[in-house]
C-alpha cells in the first residue's frame, strides 16, 4: 500500500488547482501523522541559536547587530535541509512514476509542493524570530508586519528555486552536494534583499524606505516561480 495520491481525471480548469491542493494536503497529512519533520526542525532552530551565540561570542551588541543576517542564514540552513527533502517521500516510496504519469499539467505538482515548502519555511521563520527575540534580546515585535512581508517574499524566492532543484537532485546520486551548490549562488539576491531590508526595519525605518528591496524580491519571486512552472515538466521526466 503506497502513499501516492490518487489523481482525479477531470478536465475542468479548477482541476489544476485541485491537483496542486491534493499534493499540498497529502504532504500535510503525512507530516501530521509522522511528526518527524516538525520536531527535528524545532530542535534544529534551537541548535542554530546556540551555534550563532557561540560563534559570535558573548557581546550582546555584536549579536544584536548581526541579527538580520543570522535570521536569514538560519532560514537558509533550515531550507537546505528541509527543501532538499521535498521529493524524498515520492522517491523512496516508488511514487515517482505516479507523479510522472499524472494527467494534465505537471506544474500543478510544482505549485502544490511549493505551497507546502512555503508553509514549512514560514514555520521555521516564526520559530527563529521568537527564539531570537527571546535569547538575543532584539525587539522583533514592533516591526512585525513589515518584517513578515519581507520574510514572506524571501521565503517564496527560496522555496521556488529550492523546490525545482530538489526535484532535480532527488534523482541524482550526488544530491546532498549538488543541492546546496546549485541553490546558494542563485539565492544571493534574495539573501541581500531580505537582510538589507530586515536591517533597515529593525533600525526603525519605515516600510517605504525598503520599497526598492520589496520590488526586487517580488520581481525575483515572479521570475523564479514562472521558470519553475515552465520547466518542472522537464525535470520530472525520466
Amino acid at each position, binding site marked *: 500500500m503506497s502513499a501516492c495520491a490518487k489523481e482525479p481525471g477531470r478536465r475542468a480548469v479548477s482541476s489544476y488547482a485541485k491537483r496542486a491542493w491534493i499534493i499540498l494536503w497529502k504532504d500535510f497529512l503525512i507530516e501530521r501523522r509522522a511528526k518527524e519533520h516538525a520536531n527535528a526542525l524545532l530542535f534544529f532552530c534551537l541548535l542554530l541559536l546556540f551555534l550563532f551565540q557561540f560563534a559570535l561570542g558573548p557581546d550582546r551588541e555584536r549579536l544584536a547587530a548581526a541579527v538580520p543576517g543570522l535570521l536569514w542564514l538560519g532560514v537558509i540552513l533550515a531550507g537546505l535541509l528541509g527543501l532538499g527533502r521535498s521529493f524524498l517521500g515520492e522517491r523512496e516510496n516508488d511514487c515517482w512514476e505516479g507523479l510522472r504519469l499524472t494527467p494534465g499539467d505537471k506544474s500543478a505538482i510544482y505549485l502544490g509542493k511549493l505551497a507546502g515548502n512555503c508553509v514549512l519555511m514560514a514555520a521555521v521563520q516564526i520559530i527563529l524570530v521568537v527564539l531570537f527575540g527571546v535569547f538575543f534580546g532584539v525587539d522583533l515585535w514592533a516591526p512585525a508586519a513589515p518584517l513578515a512581508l519581507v520574510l514572506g517574499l524571501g521565503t517564496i524566492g527560496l522555496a521556488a528555486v529550492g523546490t525545482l532543484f530538489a526535484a532535480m537532485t532527488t534523482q541524482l546520486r550526488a544530491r546532498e552536494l549538488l543541492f546546496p551548490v546549485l541553490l546558494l549562488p542563485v539565492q544571493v539576491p534574495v539573501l541581500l534583499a531580505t537582510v538589507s531590508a530586515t536591517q533597515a526595519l529593525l533600525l526603525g525605518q519605515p516600510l517605504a524606505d525598503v520599497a526598492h528591496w520589496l520590488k526586487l524580491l517580488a520581481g525575483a519571486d515572479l521570475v523564479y516561480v514562472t521558470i519553475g512552472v515552465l520547466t518542472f515538466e522537464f525535470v520530472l521526466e*525520466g
Partner: protein
Amino acid sequence: MTRALGWLTVLGLAAGLAAGFGYAPREAVQGNVQRIMYLHVPAVLTAYLAFLLVLLGSIAYLATRRAGWDRLAGAAGEIGVLFTGLTIVSGSIWGKPTWGTWWTWDARLTSTAVLFMVYVGYLLLRSLIEDPEARARYAAVVGILGAVNIPIVHFSVKWWRALHQPSTILGPERSPIDPAIGLALFVNWVAFTLLFAYFLARRMEIARLEEQT
C-alpha cells in the same frame, strides 16, 4: 575552417596587445596599471556573451531536443567560466595598487564572483550526470535560471553596495573618455570575441566526437 578562425584570433590578439600597450596612452590618474582594463573588460564582456549562449542553447534544447543545442550550452558554459575567472583575477590584480587591497566587495567584482559560482555549479551538475539526455535536460533548466538571474543579481549587489560605500573616485568602473582608450578597448574586445568563437568551435567539436565514440 576552425584553423582559419584560429589564425584570425592570433592576429586579433596581437593587434589587441599592440593597441593596449603601444597605441593607447598612459592614463593620467592611475598610470600604466590602467592597461589591465584592456584585459579585464573584454574578458567580462565575453563571459556575458558565453552565458547568453548558454541561455539560448538551453531554451533551444528544451524546445527541440536536438543534442547540438546542448553541446553549445555546455561548451559556452565551460568557456564562460574560464573568462569569468580571468575577469575576477585581473580585476583583483588591478585593484591591489589602485585600491590597496586584493579584494573589495565592490559591485562589479561581487556580481562577477556570484556569476562564477552559479556557472561552476552548472559545470559540476553536468559533470555529475552520466546519462546524456538527463544531463542535457537538467543543465538546461539550471542554465536558464542562472542566466535570467543575472540582472537580479546585478541590481541586488548594486543596491547593497550603495549602503556601504557611496561612490568610488578611482575604480575600474569609470568609463573611458579618451577615444584612444576607447579604440584600444574595442580592438581587444573584438580579439577576445574571436578567441571565444575559436574555443567554442573546438570545444563543441570535442563534445560531438565524444557522443559518437
